[in-house]
Structures are given as C-alpha cells and as structure tokens.
C-alpha cells in the first residue's frame, strides 16, 4: 500500500522561561492511503503535539519543530514548507477535528459562515455554489434541517451536533488526511458511538486516511487498522490492530490493554498502570518507561532501547526483544 504520510525522527520542542523543553524525541510512524491509524498513549505522551506538528500549527505558542521529516504524498516534506504553502494544505489536504466541540467553533459566527470559510478558500466556489456544497456536506454528516442550521449559532446546538459540524467542516474540501484528536471523548456514550460510526462511514466512502488520536483502546479496536503507541514523546510500539490486542509486546502496551475495562467489569481509568507519565523536563535516563515497568531489567535504566523491527511489520522499542528476529532499524 502507498504511504500517504511518513513521519521520521520528528523532534518538537517548546520554550518555557528561556528553557527549551523537548516534547517529541524522534517520532517515527507512517499512514497508508485510505487507512485509519490509531495513535494512543496516556495523557501527556505527546499525541496532540504530534498532530499539531504535522499541521505546523504552532502560532501563538513557543512550539517549533527541531528536526525530522514529515513526508506527505511521497516526497513533499512539510517541514520545509513556508507558512503560505502550509495554509494551502491546511483544511484542504489535511484537515483536523478537535476534542472539544463546545469550544472549537466560533461562538459569535453562524454555522454557515464558519462552514463556508474553507469551501470558499480552497475550492474557490462562488457564493451560491459554495452554499449548496455546504448544505450537501451537512446532510452527508447526518444533520437534519441543514438549511436552517446554516443560520444558527453554535450555542443553539448540542455537543454531538457541533462535532458533526466540525466533521463537516473538516471533510468539506475532500482532504486526503483527516486528523481527529479525541473526536468523541467529550461526548456522552451514545453520541460517541454515532460520531465514530459517522467517521468510519465517511472514511470508507471518501477513501480518506485518518489519524485517530485517542485514549480509548475500545475506540481503537473498533475503528483502526493499525496502531501506534506513544509514551513520553516517543513511539514505543507499532502494530496491526489484531496483533496489538492479541499479543502486545511493549510492557506499556500490555499495561494499557490490561487496564481496558472488560465486559461486566466496572469502568476504571485508563492510567491504572502504576505511577505517572514523567514530566517532559525531568525524563529519566534510559528507557523512559523503566520506572513504571513490570519487566524492567538493569539495562533499561542505563540505555534507551532502539526501535526494533519485529515480524508482521510491527516494531517495538524495548530491551526485552533485542534478541528476537528482525534486528535493529535505527
């Protein structure tokens, strides 16, 4: 399968009080054409920063990409693109949906106005055509009385509706890649399922690639074909969704899966792995997960494990698998 996006050795940092804090430490992963890739990890592991890095959406923050490559559509390295060039990609080729449908829409602008912006900008349609297009997109994402909703304000709609609007806005220009950062987390359970269904259905119909960021392994199991697990600004494991759930390799992944509530079990928080995600400015030496790991070995405290390619096109950064077939990629 053709690779749509290839992220290589991506390093992103923020500056706080003149101190540079590295958040991403060489993130590697790729997304195939028409694939749904899950990006999972506990809060603070750098999932959102990864997605913002792809879009280079750092205006107003101290964030900047240090090094690495973000290859889009084969050979276009987004890192070398100017702001003007990026603006042509944002919303057109790569679109985004965010977690908070309550605050992600402008409260003082009508839905129609907001929806028309990317359509007018990227598709260059004239007023009437653009409006028709907007209404048809609203219908596509399952919004009843689409014409009326165009004239309403965000506060007049429910959270689920707003997220549908966000999705409509994101797919309005037929993007090749849709980045969805926790698109259903802020919604209640039934609405969550509807939104995920909608996304899956649109993804298949439009043959979009989707980068789905989530805490929720249940969502991953439902939606994704492949999964990337992140911890402390690194990719620690990458695998096909079946392989990942069947035989997780990295102790961190194992912990994540073990903490998913089973049927009939009371729902617990995902981070039932002991301890907490380390602070990006005080990372331990060696493997960043070592202090919380159940299978920790002496070497883990000394040296960071390399990314190991394992069978079935999966990879894992853990000393446990150093001797396995495959060998070292980095």
């Amino acid at each position, binding site marked *: 399968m053709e690779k749509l996006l290839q992220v290589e050795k991506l390093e992103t940092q923020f500056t706080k009080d003149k101190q540079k804090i590295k958040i991403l430490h060489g993130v590697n992963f790729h997304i195939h054409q028409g694939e749904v890739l899950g990006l999972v990890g506990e809060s603070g592991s750098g999932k959102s920063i990864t997605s913002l890095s792809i879009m280079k959406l750092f205006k107003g923050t101290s964030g900047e990409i240090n090094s690495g490559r973000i290859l889009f559509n084969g050979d276009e390295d987004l890192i070398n693109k100017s702001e003007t060039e990026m603006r042509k990609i944002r919303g057109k080729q790569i679109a985004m949906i965010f977690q908070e449908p309550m*605050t992600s829409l402008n409260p003082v*602008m009508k839905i129609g106005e907001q929806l028309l912006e990317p359509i007018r900008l990227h598709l260059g349609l004239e007023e009437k055509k653009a409006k028709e297009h907007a209404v048809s997109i609203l219908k596509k994402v399952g919004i009843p009385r689409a014409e009326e909703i165009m004239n309403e304000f965000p506060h007049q709609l429910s959270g689920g509706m707003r997220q549908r609007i966000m999705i409509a806005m994101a797919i309005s220009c037929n993007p090749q890649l849709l980045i969805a950062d926790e698109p259903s987390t802020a919604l209640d359970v039934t609405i969550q399922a509807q939104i995920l269904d909608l996304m899956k259905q649109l993804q298949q119909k439009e043959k979009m690639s989707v980068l789905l960021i989530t805490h929720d392994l249940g969502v991953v199991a439902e939606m994704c074909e492949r999964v990337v697990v992140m911890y402390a600004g690194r990719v620690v494991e990458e695998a096909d969704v079946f392989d990942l759930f069947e035989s997780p390799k990295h102790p961190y992944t194992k912990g994540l899966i073990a903490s998913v509530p089973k049927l009939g079990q009371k729902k617990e928080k995902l981070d039932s792995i002991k301890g907490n995600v380390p602070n990006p400015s005080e990372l331990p030496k060696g493997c960043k997960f070592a202090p919380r790991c159940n299978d920790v070995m002496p070497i883990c405290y000394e040296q960071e494990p390399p990314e190991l390619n394992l069978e079935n096109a999966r990879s894992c950064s853990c000393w446990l698998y150093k001797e396995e077939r495959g060998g070292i990629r980095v």
Partner: protein
Amino acid sequence: MLKSYRAKGFFRKGLLTVLQYIIKRIFEMIPILFIVSILIFFFTHLIPGDPARLVAGKDATFEEVATIREELGLDKPIWEQYVTYMGNLFQGDLGTSLKTGLPIMDMFVDRFMPSIYLTLFSMVWALVIGLLIGTLSAVFKNKWPDYLGMVSAVSGISLPGFWLGLILIQIFSVQLGWFPTGGADGWKSYVLPSLTLGAGIMSMLARFTRSSLLETLKADFIRTGRAKGLKESIVIPKHALRNSLIPVVTIAGLQFGFLLGGSVVVETVFSFPGMGRLLIDSISFRDYPVIQAELLLFSIEFIMVNLVVDILYSYLNPKIRYTA
C-alpha cells in the same frame, strides 16, 4: 409571566422584538430614575451653605433673606419641596436658576449639544485608537509595537486631564496657533478638549483590548480557524477581535457614561461652554435647581448609554437571552 427565549443575534430577530426590548427597558428606567431623583434632591440639599443668602446678597438684612427663602419655597419641609419639584418636572418645568433667574431649560439648550459633541468626539477617537493599539499590542505581544503601545497607554492613563489640557494648549494654541485656546466655535475648538478628554479612555480601552484579545487568541476556535488554512489577517479581525470586543464594549459604555459627567475638568481648562462648567458654577453658587436638573440629566444619559451598550452587547454575543 416572564417568558425567556433565545435571541438569534439582535437584528435578525426582527424589529418588533428590538422595540419591545427597548420599551421594556425604558419602563424599567422609571423606578430607577425615581430613586435617583430622591437621592439627588436630598444630597443636593445637604450641600452646606444657604442659597437664600446667596441670592439676597451679602448686605441683605435677616428679614430680606427670610422673604427670599419664603419666595423660593425653601422654608417648607424638604418632602414638600421634593413633591413640588417633581410635580413641576412632570409638567416639563425644570425650574429657574437661583443665580440668573432664567428658566433652566433655556440655560441647557445652548450647553447641552456642545457637551454631547465633546463627549462623542472624545469617545470616537478613543475607541478607534484604543482598539488599534490594543490589537497591535496583542498581535505583536512582547515585540516593539506592544511596548510602544503599552507605554502610550500607561502615559495616557497617568497624565491628569487638566495637565494634559494645559500642555496641549501651550503647544498647539499658544505656540503653533493651530487651535483656539477655548470656546466652542467650530470644529477646531473641539480638537484639543476631545484629545484631552479621550486620552484616559483610549489608554484603558487599549489595555482591555490587548488582554481580551490575548485571551481569545488562546481559544480553541482560533486554532480551528488556522487549521482551516485561514490567514492571520482573517483569523485576527474576523474570529478573534469580535469575540474580544464583548468585554471591551462594556468598559467603553461605562467610560462613556463617566465622560458625560467627567468633562467638568476639561470644560474648565478649555473654558468650554458646556454642561460641566455650568455644574461647577452652580455648585459654587448653591444653585439647587440647576444642580438637580443637571444630575438628573446625567443619570438619564448614563442609563441610556447602558441601554445602548446592552443592545450592542447582544448583537456581538448571540448567546445573550432577552426576557420579554
């Protein structure tokens, strides 16, 4: 029964609703004005000094003063005076000045509009420049436009009005001769007083706009706008500024209200024939009826400004609900 409903932005809701809302607000003004009138009346009478003696003159005998007091009705109990006053007011009679003996209405006619113009001009430039400085400061946060903007804002707030006025007169009237030193003849005579009067407001608005805009720029919907591929030159005015204006409008309205009464100092410095100077003169003469009429007028103006602010506010913020 009070029925609340959502307003889908003010002007879209139809003229009828707007009118209903305004009429309702005007009716709400009545009890407020009633209380205000009582307060004004009694506090004015607390001002020490005897107006009858002032009218009679220094050399008047005790009997003469007593006669005048009786003529003016000042010997009656204060409640009775109030009732008489309000009765006249309802017939459109503001009373006559103790000092000049002229009907107060006539005294207001010449002075009201110059003061209103002065306030309006001050407000307009303060708003335009304040918003501009605030926006530039926020957009170029911690860069030189920000420092420059905030330095000018701080100086605008800390310079006392009379001092700024005197400096402006010295430079632009006395030395350069561009503008008259006082009066209210033609637009030229409004320039320096408006600059003086608006300086403080401009600074305040600049600082408010800056902080409000900085806050808005952190909002998620700004990121959404950028993620759509919008330019900063669209994101800032169209998405950010409109949201930031909501608190700014409130402040601007309050300041506008204060300006209406606050022109006293500036009108004095520029010998401007407006309501502010009339108030000062009336207070020093204990011209009760004029003081009362002026304060009442200021109160009405203040309440009207508030109404306008509320209407603007609901136009800017579609979330506001009216009750009708």
